[in-house]
């Protein structure tokens, strides 16, 4: 009986019955789904992609590889506020983790790349990052006999599109199944402690889950940063040049609209937010409550939610090895 579910709202007309409806009243389904154990991939491309991912020849002065800022040993990010490019310049935004990026609906904080392949062009050509170009890169790579042989075998030729595809294929192998929360979702009721379970409930009842849902606990929609309180009026600093999706759509309504980041392995990927302005996870939770929900989440609830967020850490083995 579908209409029974809705009766909560119906009866809410009289203030006497103003008990807060939790989201599960409206929809019984679990909004977060576990990461699959594996994805169908071409192992040869993954291996080739891994080499390229670690290859500094993709940068202008052979000083930086993809892995420099997306360090697989540092949960696929670099722990920096914003990354440092070839000439020692700071990049504009915090480097997001490369783990589980395959589950993001678009790439970059502002979602300007539709696929992992398209994403590769970004850092490679960005003057503040790798500051190179495809002709320059190809000229270097083509001298490597092993590359030539591998590309010939797999793709039949060596072209920038193939380089992008190989890197992307490697990135698709970087998924982190087996987190304790996923085990819990898959039916192992003992995988979480009572406190963590409580944290999960709070994560849902506070409404974090309205945006942070799906397999990546986010990463599948855009959202404005600062819904109930303008972003940047508190401890965090805001770069006036960093306008979010507005830079792409040229619409005022997209000011400070970013891709909602996925929260998988979030405990390992500090600092937080697009500008890396927040050091501690606790602080990020508190600020999210203020900016997005208009609530001051009490300290004990923050602690529980952070406990829950820790259970999203999965198995971070670098694939292809």
């Amino acid at each position: 009986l579908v209409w029974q579910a809705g009766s909560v709202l119906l009866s809410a007309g009289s203030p006497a019955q103003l008990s807060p409806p939790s989201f599960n009243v409206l929809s019984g389904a679990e909004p977060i789904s576990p990461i699959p154990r594996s994805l169908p991939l071409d192992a040869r491309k993954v291996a080739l992609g891994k080499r390229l991912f670690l290859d500094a020849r993709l940068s202008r002065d052979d000083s930086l590889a993809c892995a420099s800022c997306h360090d697989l040993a540092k949960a696929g990010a670099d722990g920096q506020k914003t990354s440092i490019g070839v000439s020692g310049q700071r990049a504009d935004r915090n480097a997001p983790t490369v783990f589980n990026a395959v589950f993001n609906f678009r790439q970059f904080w502002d979602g300007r790349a539709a696929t992992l392949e398209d994403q590769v062009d970004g850092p490679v050509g960005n003057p503040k990052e790798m500051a190179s170009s495809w002709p320059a890169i190809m000229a270097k790579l083509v001298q490597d006999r092993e590359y030539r042989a591998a590309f010939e075998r797999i793709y039949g030729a060596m072209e920038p599109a193939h380089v992008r595809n190989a890197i992307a294929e490697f990135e698709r192998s970087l998924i982190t199944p087996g987190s304790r929360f996923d085990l819990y979702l898959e039916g192992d009721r003992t995988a979480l402690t009572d406190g963590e379970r409580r944290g999960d409930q709070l994560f849902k009842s506070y409404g974090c889950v309205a945006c942070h849902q799906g397999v990546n606990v986010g990463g599948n929609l855009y959202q404005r940063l600062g819904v109930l309180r303008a972003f940047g009026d508190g401890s965090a600093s805001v770069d006036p040049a960093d306008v979010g999706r507005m830079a792409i759509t040229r619409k005022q309504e997209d000011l400070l609209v970013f891709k909602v980041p996925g929260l998988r392995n979030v405990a390992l990927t500090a600092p937080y937010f697009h500008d890396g302005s927040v050091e501690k996870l606790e602080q990020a939770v508190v600020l999210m409550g203020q900016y997005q929900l208009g609530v001051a989440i009490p300290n004990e609830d923050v602690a529980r939610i952070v406990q829950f967020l820790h259970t999203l850490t999965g198995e971070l083995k670098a694939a292809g090895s």
Partner: protein
Amino acid sequence: LKATRLAAAGAALVAAAFVGVLAWNAKTIDPAAHSRVIANLGKLQELDSELDEVTLKLRDALLSNYDPLVASLSLVHAHTRDLQEGEYAIVLVGGTELAAAMAGIAQKLADKEALLERFKTSNALLKNSFHYFPLSVERLLSDPRAPAALREAVQRLLRDVLMLRLGATPTDYELIALQIEQLHQGEARQAPAMRGKTKLVLLHAQNVLQHQAAVDRLVDAITDPAVKRTGHSLAEAYNTAFERRLLEANVYRFILLLLTAGLLTYAGFAFLRLRRSTGAMRESEERYRKLFELSPDGMLIFSEGRIVLVNSMCMKMLGASAPEQLIGRPYLELFQADYRERVGERVRHMEEANAALPAEERRIVMLDGTGLDVEAAASPFMHQGKPSVQVVMRDITDRKKADERLNYLAQYDSLTGLPNRGLFRDRLEHSLAQAKRSGRPAAVLYIDLDRFKTVNDTLGHATGDKLLQQVAVRLAECVRRGDTVGRFGGDEFGMILLDLAKPGDAAVVAQKINDALARPFDLDGHLTFVSSSIGITLYPADASDPAVLNMNADAAMYRAKELGRNNYQFFTQEMNERAKQRMHMEASMRRALERGEFLLHYQPKVDLASGAICGIEALLRWAQPEKGLVSPAEFIPVLEDTGLIIPVGEWVAREACRQIAAWQQAGLQAPPVAVNLSARQFQQKNLAGVMRDILKESGVGAAQLQFEITESLLMNDPEGAVRTLLGLKEIGVMLSIDDFGTGYSSLAYLKRFPLDALKIDRAFIKDIVTDADDAAITLAIINLAHNLKLKVVAEGVETEAQLNLLALHACDEMQGYYFSRPVPAAELEAMLREGRRLARSHDWSNAPPAVLLLDHNEHDLVLLAKALRSDEFEVLTAGSAEDAFVLLASRPVAVVVADQGMSGMNGTEFLGKLRKLFPDAVRIGISGASDPNTVANAINEAGVHKFLLKGWDGARLRNEVREAYRQYRTAVMRDSSKL
């Protein structure tokens, strides 16, 4: 001479251009590209619908994450890319380039994606604001410092904002915006402590307002059917263009080959003439050789049965590296052995008639023995003074392959690789011929999956497709070589079984199929269960004509479905009879309207408070001259199927209006008359206009006419229903939702439908007295309807107990045999004249609660009743559970004392049911024996409050019951004071 040369050159140029045009037009269509276009267009249309569906589910919170949307969109990307990367040499009717049309579709989908992104953002914010807005109001209200005026304003805001969710007009939005604005202005005057709280309330309210409007607008734009129509018409235009193109290509190819053969023959003759007349043999022979050698077609000349000359293309085609490998060999060796005689025959014939052989498809043998498909033309020829034959050959392997592929596409189902309906029909004909020869019976099976639609709806089309593929594999595993499995489309499959030892073997296979499909299917980790309904017909027992066998199998399959699915049915003559009967009925029904065989019966609805007749439902009846009254269950489906329901439905409305007018003229105060609207009528474009005209003609006021529309019909296309209902409402008629509770209603829509009344389906009323679930559902429906300000009518009320229970639960009206069955107009008129009312034996709903005794033993019952007699309460007695429920339905009961050892339903079971239906009543069990199991069961399952043994002492029992009675009263008092 110069002029002649110029003219000749010009002519050659024109000819070359002509040949060029022919060659271009003869280019075969690549079947791979074709099937790619078809598959992509189809898939995109499917995905487009899927996006709409997911969007609606997300809006209604039936889905809790956005991954399905992302997944569908990434498939959309893949298919649009694939579509746009293809090369299409096809121009659509009207001259539009296909590529341009494809780009148009891609653009529409990209626009849709942009809308979807905004939808996700707004939907997420809306969800949260709906959560926090009431909380923020509560926080403000719980602050004792909040002034009364602010409280009142905020409470009003809360109510109005929450109602937005149930559908709103632009005025509603404006009103709320105004309230927010006023509260904003008042904010400055408030104490600082209140300011923050008010501000938060207003922020959340504003968010709800903004994003509810955005979500509504975006959902409308996303689900706009215009996109669907564009895709659909493109697919159609493409198909037309493709078929035309295919035909043209074949014609051109044929002309081209004839032309080549003709030209070369002409060149040959010209060369001979030249040699005779001028003797410039060498030069012209050289010319001919050049022409011969350079021809893009394979050419060879044979003389006296042996090859004398070949060009290099011919060598290439035959796999020879030097002319010597071919020259001197008998030309017949080029053909397969079993072919040679016929070819030789034809060539002799040609030589005798001295006429060319037109182009034909042939299969020749290459030097290494492999076969090659060619198109070849031959003509008589003089070579070195000897009568010879010149052959032009063209390799048509590619074309053959393409044709085969197209053929395949036309005959096989692309999803499962099984024969489609057309090929299945062909195979059936062949199979029957074979069965006829062998003299063994054959069978045709039709197989339909039972739950396929649910799989498609819940798991998506891609998963549905996977299921069909797996089903196809399992079906194929159920048959032997030589049998045929085909797919007719959707979830329908067919099977031909040959060489059956006995007819019963078909049943063995059918059972095998049922079993094979009953095993779970693994669809990407979802274990899914389906079952199948199978119809079987036998050759030659049932029929020998393939068309008849197909019809039989279909009829038998429908019978299997009717019989509750997951079974198989053999075709019987009875099914045939039924089909015939139906045809007969259809034919006589077509004449029924003009012959005036339809009539209306009227069933009164009664107001439960006053007992007076407050409404009438008009019901269609058919008096067939030969048979008398035909059951509506029999003829109404036929009316629906044939579309006759539209004229008949209009007749019903017209006749009802005529009757209303007649009653009015006779000075009767008749209540409004309701007529039912069927699905087809409801989809009629101008329904409201038609009904308005009927009202006008009859001079009856709109308030006198009502329409009843079933729940499932409304929910089938709720958006459309809102529009149609609003159109009807504009005329001024009353509307009710019929058979409520049997379909799936969305509360949001229910609120938006402009309804006046809701009729609870008879299925719930039937067991309302004894079935706790039905009672709970009925009660919930009544509450829901009252919340939505709808009157509630209970259908199918047949007993007093049902009536009492409904009255107890504040149901407004009833309709059913208990008061009156549907009767002819005259009888109803009589009822109205005598002012007949519903007489209720006694209304106990306000009586003080009683004590109920239940014992199957009459003697014990009397004794018990005596023992319990008291001034405090009345003692009711029942000899059976049924009687007890009837009593319980009609009046409040505080304590129930039940004997455990009853016939029919045992005491524990009775008390258990009682606990669900009337949780407040105190339950006491008594038993003659002290069997510990009975006691334990009574306590655990029925939750009895006390358990007593028979052989009791009267005073103690009285005390126990009195105690229980007081307990009940105190509890009820406490509850009511809380209210």
